[in-house]
């Protein structure tokens, strides 16, 4: 009994905070974010097999991703069509909503031997900006989540990065190039297995 009351109180407080936080007259981050759940899962936690989890996403990374989709600068099957429906203020509100949700790693199959090789590559080339396990905890990194993300999504993303259909920063580009030179596509495949092994 006591527990439910505390919960009620917390909820009421929450809803006050939410409505106050919503930009003037517009839809709140929660209202906007709830419309995404059909494809990204409740609160942005995807059940796969391919759609990315966006719960716990880095705020700046998400704002940039949405703006890139909106401008048609990032290759996408559908997000370019979706993102065009929102103002900058709405994108900020929904990014705040998803950045505040708990990230849940995907449960999926992976190749343990490849993951082991991938771990080493991650440490060598990517860890600086993507955290120890592909999940950066440093807000200033502004990088996407790799560890525990759905494998098909990672496959598509790496293919787009390689084909230049998605841009990347200078430093990351250099690391990717070095990785390609040293290990080729097999190295990328190992990295993906490593990220998938984070569960």
């Amino acid at each position, binding site marked *: 009994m006591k527990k439910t009351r505390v919960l009620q109180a917390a909820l009421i407080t929450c809803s006050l905070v939410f409505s106050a936080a919503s930009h003037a*007259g517009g839809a709140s981050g929660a209202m906007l974010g*709830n*419309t995404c759940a*059909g494809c990204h899962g409740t609160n942005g936690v995807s059940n796969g*097999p391919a759609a990315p989890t966006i719960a716990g996403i880095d705020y700046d990374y998400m704002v940039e991703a949405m703006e890139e989709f909106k401008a048609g600068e990032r290759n996408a099957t559908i997000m370019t069509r979706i993102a*065009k429906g929102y103002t900058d203020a709405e994108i900020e509100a929904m990014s705040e909503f998803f950045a505040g949700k708990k990230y849940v790693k995907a449960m999926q199959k992976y190749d343990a031997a490849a993951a082991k090789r991938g771990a080493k590559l991650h440490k060598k080339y990517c860890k600086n900006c993507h955290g120890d396990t592909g999940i950066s905890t440093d807000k200033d990194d502004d990088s996407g989540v790799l560890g525990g993300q759905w494998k098909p999504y990672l496959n598509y993303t790496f293919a787009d990065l390689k084909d230049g259909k998605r841009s990347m920063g200078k430093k990351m580009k250099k690391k990717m190039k070095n990785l390609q030179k040293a290990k080729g596509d097999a190295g990328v495949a190992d990295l993906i297995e490593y990220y998938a092994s984070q569960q």
Partner: protein
Amino acid sequence: MSDFTRRKFLKAGIATAIAGASATYGGFVIGGASKKVVVVGGGIAGATAAKYIRMMDSSIDVTVIEANKDYYTCFMSNEVLSGERTLDSIKFGYSGLGKHGVNVVHDTVTGIDANKRVVKTAGGDSFKYDRCIVAPGIDFKWETIGGYDAKVAEGTPHAWKAGPQTATLRKQLEGMRDGGTFVIAPPPNPFRCPPGPYERVAQIAHYFQNNKPKSSILILDPKKKFSKFGLFKAGWKKHYGYNPDNPTGPGMIKWINSEAGGTVSSYDARSKTLTAKAGKFKGDVVNIIPAQKAGKIAFTAGLTNDKGWCPINGKTFESTIHKNIHVVGDACIAKPLPKSGYAANSEAKVCAAAVVALLQGEGAPTPSYVNTCYSIIAPGDGISVAMVYAYDEGAGKIIKVKGSGGLTPGKFDPVMREREQQYAYSWFNNITSDVFK
């Protein structure tokens, strides 16, 4: 408990909750005074609304009254027809809603008293509500096709409500001889899932191609065009054989539209013969999807207009006919949103937020809605249509957000079409868990 004391209680309840003070008021526990929402129909819209109300405010007492123990999604049921997936894979139960504290009652609602705010069931129970959400889905206008009714539909399925109907149609397709004809009669607008009949054609063509390649599909359509028109026609042509310039010419798929006399007026179940202006057509397997209207209870409760659908306020989904009753999903008029599962899920969340706010004595929040419909034409060929919607406060209606949405590009890109298929499956997993888990 009289209305008066109940209300007084409620106010006290909220005040106590905010202050986080003692658990009782006047000797009663606060929990007994919570606001009551009764949801009629635990399909996509109803189950979503129930879950989200509880997520938004767990002090609200939410009861879902649903006729069936199991829910079979219509979406992906076309893949059951083609044998790409099992009927079990589209079956969902109600234990997930229970985890959110939703009371689930399996019974059929027979009446809603809008004045007394009471829902009555076939089982003889009554449920009092502060706000009621009606989400019964669709019913059929059986009278539009002579010789076709609920009884005949047991042998000649519509399969437009998934479950046993889907199983029957699948069985008939499996039993059909190679070289047979499958005749499908899609409904006139407006209806549940505008691309659905045409995805069904593609899925069954896929099954025939691999199992009964001499067979053909005839579409007898009361419309001139349909959703994702160009994409479907191109897809049929590419994968199965269809000639857009001569739609009744050679090729597995033939389409007779309304202008060519495709509107079916009657059906003879014994000879499996459909009559249209264009002639009489005999099928080996026949699938008739009749014209549609809101689910029966919407009529009983007096929530429908002369066209057979429920007019609502697009910001709250409250009926414009009866106060304190909201209608969501296929049964309501939410134009320009289509009658789809994605839309039903999206509408239900807008409704849930409005109901929570109204019960808390606040104004309904500014809504936002999305719709997407994926269709799978063939393995490796997924397509979609999407749109973002907003509420125009001045005009008092739901509008499309200019510049958003649209179709998968017409130019066939195998890499992106393959991704869309995988994302269609992701959508299925995510929406079903958003609704039922």
